[in-house]
């Protein structure tokens, strides 16, 4: 990407995020609540996209880090009078440390084995928390601190999104992205070229886990009551996975598009309790089937198709692989 357009993109991001802070002035309470959920999902989606889309680490362990972040936040706030922003960093840090600790074992696994291993990690943590007495077992913990206002939550979420955007842009717009892709496309070849695959994967895993932990902490701050089924549950893992696939795996803005669609669908269909899960399933299957690069990928393809010179139709297909 040329320097000028990179600058323009940075300006655009700053403008969008600054614009978001004005949302509570215009939209009602409902808009702000939806906005909060959207921001949390975007952060989670971006983190997962960094792992799966850029580094080829298809993880089903998202819920582990969200759950850890949630328990850290409630534990810390109940024990001491710490500012929330520092606590959120703490949530992220503990999640990142756990990621670091489990990485030697997990990174022995490649491809499918990694996917299944992360799934087991999430499940093992959930089962542990259900049985552990220090965390109240299945009863969980309640936050003693007074509950925050919707607007305050929204501003924290904006802060989290800004942090995520900076970190992930730093990963995807610099030479680090080349390392990530080289590991994704062929780990062995990359190693032979002198790329330290383990370190590259570890960096991506730690960054993603930090963001997931912080997002989990913020969600716990909103809920005020946490327990293992809700915070370590598979539904987080699946939601994040689906939003990235729906939006567009490996595309920078894919998670944003995906989060909007997933939140809107969930929000709308919850009013039709009888069939909403089945409808969600059908929509998921249709999108995966007809938009293999997600809705964003489909949009980009459409734009290219419309702008491409008609006779040279072959050019359409010869875009960059993946």
């Amino acid at each position, binding site marked *: 990407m040329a320097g000028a357009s990179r600058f323009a993109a940075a300006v655009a991001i700053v403008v969008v995020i600054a614009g978001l802070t004005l949302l509570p002035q215009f939209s009602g*309470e409902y808009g702000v609540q939806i906005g909060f959920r959207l921001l949390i999902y975007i952060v989670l989606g971006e983190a997962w996209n960094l792992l799966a889309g850029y580094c080829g680490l298809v993880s089903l362990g998202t819920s582990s880090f969200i759950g850890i972040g949630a328990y850290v936040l409630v534990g810390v706030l109940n024990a001491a009078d710490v500012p929330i922003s520092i606590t959120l960093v703490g949530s992220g840090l503990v999640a990142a440390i756990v990621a670091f600790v489990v990485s030697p074992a997990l990174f022995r696994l490649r491809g499918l084995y990694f996917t299944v291993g992360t799934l087991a990690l999430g499940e093992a943590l959930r089962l542990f928390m259900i049985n552990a007495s220090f965390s109240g077992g299945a009863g969980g913990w309640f936050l003693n601190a007074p509950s925050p206002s919707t607007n305050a939550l929204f501003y924290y979420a904006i802060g989290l999104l800004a942090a995520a955007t900076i970190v992930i842009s730093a990963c995807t717009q610099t030479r680090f992205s080349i390392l990530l892709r080289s590991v994704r496309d062929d780990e062995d070849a990359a190693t032979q070229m002198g790329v330290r695959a383990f370190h590259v994967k570890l960096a991506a895993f730690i960054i993603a886990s930090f963001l997931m932990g912080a997002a989990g902490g913020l969600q716990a701050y909103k809920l005020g009551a946490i327990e293992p089924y809700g915070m370590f549950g598979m539904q987080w893992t699946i939601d994040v996975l689906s939003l990235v696939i729906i939006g567009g795996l490996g595309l920078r803005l894919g998670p944003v598009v995906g989060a909007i669609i997933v939140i809107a669908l969930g929000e709308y269909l919850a009013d039709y309790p009888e069939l909403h899960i089945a409808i969600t399933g059908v929509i998921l299957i249709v999108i995966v089937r007809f938009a293999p690069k997600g809705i964003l990928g489909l949009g980009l393809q459409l734009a290219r198709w419309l702008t491409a010179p008609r006779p040279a139709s072959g050019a359409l297909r010869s875009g960059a692989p993946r």
Partner: protein
Amino acid sequence: MNKKINNGLPRRLAKAALFGAVASFALVAGWTSSANAADEIVIGASLPLSGPLAGFGSFQQWGYKRAIDAVNKAGGIAIDGKKWPVRLIIRDDKTDPNASASNIETLISRDNVTALLGSCTPSLVNAGALVAERHKKPMVTGCDPLEAFKSVRKWTYVWDLFFDEPDLAGADFKMIAEYGIETNKKVAILHDNGPDGQIVGGQIWPAMAKAGGMEVVENASFPIDNTQFTSIIAEAKSKNAEIVLVDSITPQAVSIRKQMASAGFSPKILVIEKGAEPVQFAEALGKLSDGILVGGYWDPSFPYPGAAQLAADFEKETGQTSSQHIADSNSAAEILLDAIAAAGSTDPEKINAAIAKTDKTYVAGLIKFDENHTSKLPMAIDQWQSGKAIVVWPKDRATGKLLFPMPN
């Protein structure tokens, strides 16, 4: 090759465009359907209609709807001399506390509800109740055992009518003492480690057993969704426990009973709290359900106004067998509607004040909230006999005789 692709692509795009159009229509519809008619009272509820607790949700949904339909049939609720119809909005929380919380948010901010009704089980009810509390909207709920409810916080806007765990746990021991039942006084306790399971099985039962001069030979806990109980059952059998007290949800209750039988273990008294209550428990087990005891806070035979009618209507309308959950849900909705009528206003503070003054016998029993915002439903003990739940304790409410010891 190129030709084929070029033929396929526009078709694919057309399909995608069609889908996109449908999706965006849905989106817009979702965002704009929020406006309420000004002259109706909107009541919201988030219920587990899918996921592991979907069984509870369907009973509650019926109980809530029935109360609201009854009010609307009578013309609605009078506010400022004019009758307002009541609209009930129900959203599915998929048995996920995160969804329960966000559903209540949406009901408050998008649908602008006047008041709320609760979900089921402590984790789902509490998640939604905390949102209601934060937004100062009154909520009446059942299906959240009172100790678990009280342990969350000091409530201002949320009210709970259900059984109290000490009552539930104590009823069995009271019955054993009152009927002079003779056993070797060895008790095995098997409980899940959910919020109420921890209180009932972890704290109250052991204390009560000790107070009653019994010996607790085993006290085992397990996760709510456990499937295997062979070790704890073998342990209870080898310790020769004649009284077995279980606290678990229905799928686990069925598995435990089957695994007890297949381990050749047959205690004289088997109590399975929570899980043995619905008729599906007895249907799934057949003969094996005979003699199992379960605490109940409601039965159609109880001397409350409309109790028999409620169960009969449920069975007629749905073709399913009734459950006690139709009673507390129906009463929760009636309490709320009565409070709105008494307040004569949709102002949350006035409604909340009116709920606090509730003192009336509803279909679930006498409801009067204490300073913790709870109202206890008194316990009885049911026993499954040939696929029917027979009330065996207390004596003045019994509809049949206690079967003792449990048939082998």
